[in-house]
Structures are given as C-alpha cells and as structure tokens.
C-alpha cells in the first residue's frame, strides 16, 4: 500500500523530498507533520511552504489510507510546484472531513479552527474507547460519539435502544396506519392490531360453523323442530329464531346477544344492512318470503357490529354467507 500511493506522486513530480516508502514510518511522519509550518486558514495564499511540509503532505495522504476517516484523497499527481493551490485543496479536504489524529494542544498555532474542537474531543474519545476496548469484555468496540460517555453501561443501553428502535421500524411496516412517529402511540397501534387480528380469528372460527357444518340443525334443534341437515335454511325455523331473539331482547340484551352468537348470528342496524346489501352482490339465499334479503359474503368486519337499533326494529341475522334482514317492528318494544 505504501508503494502504490507514493509511486504516482514520485513519477509525476520528481524533485520531491519524499521519504522512501520503505523507510516510511508513522512516528516519523507525525513528527514531520507537527513540526512543519502551520496552516492557518488565512495563510493559504502564502508562498510555498518549506520542503518538509511537502513530505508531510505526501505522508499525510498516506496516513489517510491507514486510518479510518473521511478525508478526501487528493491525487498526488496534482502535486505541482504551485503548492499554495495544493494546500488549499487539501485544506478543503480536511475541513470537510474529520481528523482522527491526535492533535496536540495548540500545536504551533497551526490549527484549523473549525475542525479543532472536533478532533480534540474525538481524540480523547477514541483514546478512552481504546481503553475500554482493551479491558477483557465481550462488549463490541463501539466508537463513542462526541460528548457521550463511553462506559460499558451506557454502551449497552444505547445498543439496546438501537435494537428496539430497529424492531419498531420493522413493526411499523407491518401494522397498517403505522405512520406515527411517537413510540408510545406506535405501541398502542401494535397492541390494537394484535387484538384485532385475534378477534378476527375468533369471528372466523365462529363463521366456519355456518359454512361447513349445518347451522340449520342447530336452529331447528333450538326451535324443537325438525332436523334438517340441508344447507338451506328453513323458513319457519328462521322465524322462530327471530321470535326467540325478540323475546330475549325484552328481558336482557346480553342473553339475546349470547343466544345469537351461539348460532353464529349477530345484530346489525337495518340501515347498515341495506348499505351492505346494495354495496355487494344481490341475494344469494332465498330464505324468508316476507323478508327482504340480501346476500353478502361474510366478512368479519361486517359481522362484528354489535349495534342494535331496536327502535327501527331490525333483526339482522348473519348466517354463514348471507345476510337476512328481517323487518319485525311489532314484536320489539325496548328502546
């Protein structure tokens, strides 16, 4: 790596005082650099710096590659006798990046003002991190940020927080309406979504009965009637259910709901039912003649509206895949 860097420069600009690559040494370079003429930001237009600074510049580039930093590499082929320009270019490179080296305190005034404090704290930080990393631990070598403590507890804490934030982000994509930035509200959303999904499973497992098994047998059994195992519903049994429900509703809403739920049915306001029926495909199962019916594919969302509009006297039973709207104003009196 040494040679590759320095060869272009040496080829392009011959009369240079580059140190031979073989003998290039980190410490030597540093000494050269610090002893060289300062580079104040205002003094860049000065005449060419002394030869030693040349070598230090070249060496500096070399150092770039060694350490992990963001200094822009300025090709040494541009290194021409007009050193002022070079120094300018280098300086812009420096100010853009961050210097990882150990700047001695007030090194000959040749300190680039804006990057000085940065490098200072970074230097101290890196030394301490180096110290921590040296202790036998399983902690990763995390480079401490500016101004943050570097003891193991806070590192662990920070790691943990980062990990959690990362998972939060992935959860955010899963949950619909996950655009909340606040962590607390995001967690609320997640919790609600999990609850919703579990409720969906529950409702779907209820409706499975309507599709697969024979609900009619259930209803007819309750009505004490015939045992029909056909998939179609019996008109009279449905009417009986309806009466049953109405009777129950007069006593206690809860029991009525439970009764219906046991059959895989639910209550819905009639306006909603009509909306649903008009929104989707028309009737499927001709059930009760005196009844306006609408066929709606069962979706858990539609089925789980436990709102009862008793005033309008609507008992809507959702069976399997059909919605039947029953208008029975007289029997229901409870508001």
């Amino acid at each position, binding site marked *: 790596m040494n040679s590759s860097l320095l060869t272009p420069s040496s080829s392009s600009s011959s009369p240079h005082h580059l140190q031979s690559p073989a003998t290039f040494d980190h410490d030597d370079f540093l000494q050269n650099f610090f002893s060289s003429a300062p580079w104040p930001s205002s003094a860049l237009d000065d005449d060419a710096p002394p030869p030693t600074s040349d070598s230090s510049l070249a060496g500096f580039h070399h150092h770039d590659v060694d350490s992990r930093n963001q200094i822009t590499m300025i090709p040494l082929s541009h290194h021409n006798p007009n050193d002022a320009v070079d120094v300018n270019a280098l300086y812009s490179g420096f100010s853009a990046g961050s210097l990882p080296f150990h700047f001695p305190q007030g090194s000959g005034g040749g300190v680039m003002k804006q990057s000085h404090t940065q490098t200072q704290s970074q230097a101290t930080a890196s030394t301490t991190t180096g110290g921590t990393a040296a202790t036998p631990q*399983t902690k*990763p070598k*995390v480079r401490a940020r500016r101004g943050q403590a570097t003891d*193991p*507890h806070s590192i*662990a*804490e920070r*790691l*943990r*927080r980062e*990990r*959690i934030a*990362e*998972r*939060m982000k*992935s*959860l955010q994509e*899963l*949950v619909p309406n996950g655009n909340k930035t606040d*962590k*607390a509200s995001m*967690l*609320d959303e*997640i*919790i609600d*979504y*999990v*609850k919703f*999904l*579990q409720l*969906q*499973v*529950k409702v*779907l*497992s*209820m*409706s*499975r*009965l309507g*599709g*697969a*098994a024979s609900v009619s*047998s*259930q209803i007819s*059994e309750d009505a004490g009637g015939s*045992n029909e195992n056909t*998939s*179609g519903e019996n008109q009279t049994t449905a009417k009986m259910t309806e009466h049953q429900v109405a009777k129950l509703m007069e006593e206690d809403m809860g029991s009525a709901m439970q009764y219906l739920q*046991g*059959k*895989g049915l639910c209550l819905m306001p009639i306006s909603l039912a009509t909306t649903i029926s008009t929104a989707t495909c028309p009737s*499927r*199962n001709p059930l009760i003649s005196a009844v306006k019916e609408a066929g709606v*594919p*069962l*979706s*858990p969302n539609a089925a789980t509206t436990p709102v009862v509009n008793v005033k309008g006297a609507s008992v809507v039973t959702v069976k*399997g*895949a*059909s919605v039947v709207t029953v208008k029975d104003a007289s029997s229901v009196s409870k508001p």
Partner: protein
Amino acid sequence: MASADKPINTDVPEKDVFALHFLQSLSNLRRQNTFNSPEKTNDRVKKIKKAAYVSMARAAGGTNRLWSRALLRRAAKENNKIVRFPRRKKRVTCLRRRSNRRDPVEEEEAERLRNLVPGGGGMGTSKLMEETAHYIKCLSMQVKVMQCLVDGLAPK
C-alpha cells in the same frame, strides 16, 4: 453480542402451509364423534378456535419460535398432556447484559403486549418486539386462510 445484529428473520411460510395445517386439524376435529352432533355451539367454536391457533403455531415454525412454543405448551396443558420440548442450545444472547433491560417509560405498553402475545412474559423487550412481528405476520396469514375457506365454502 456484536454491534451489528444478526439480521432478524421474520420470514413466514406461504399461505399453503397454513392452509394445510388448518385443514388437517379441521378434518381431525370432524372425525371426533362428538363434534358434529347438535350440541352447544360454543364448544365447537372454542374447539375450532383452538385448532386454528395450534395449526397456526405449527405452521409458523413449531418449536422454533418462542410464541409458538408457548402456544403449543398452553394448548397441550389444556388437554392435560405434558409436552416436552427439546432444549434449544443456548445462543450468545445470554452474554448480553441484563442490567438495564427494562425502561420504565415503555414498560407499561410492553406489559400489555406481553399479555397479548403468547409467551411474552419471559422475554426481554427487544425479543418481544421481534416475536410480535412474526406473530402478527402469522396471524394475518391465518386470517387470510380462514377467510378464503369461508368464502370458498359459502353456499351459492
């Protein structure tokens, strides 16, 4: 643990796997003599629901996931069956410091999540969120499967 986390794996099998498991459990249920006779529908509902969860847990990875393991253990306990799960080899996670595990600000919410997700009680917050993500994916897959079944079997 390394600062760069191993990539979190929240892959979930395809819908077919879930469908297969669920249908298998349903057919098993059907074979039970007491199932189709006219009885209280609540029992059937509960059985179907439990079958749904168990089949989901199996499809999602069996004992490889904490939540599925907890679910299966819970289901087995209800049936009075003792199940033994082979102990997975301890991962490097135990090296992680447990000193600052809980953060009181987010803890109450995490508590609610723990109650919802099976097996949530024994996990750290970070692991909990990972499990939640997988759980949500599996739940939505299961819901899709069941919905398709219902739609497919709806009387024309």
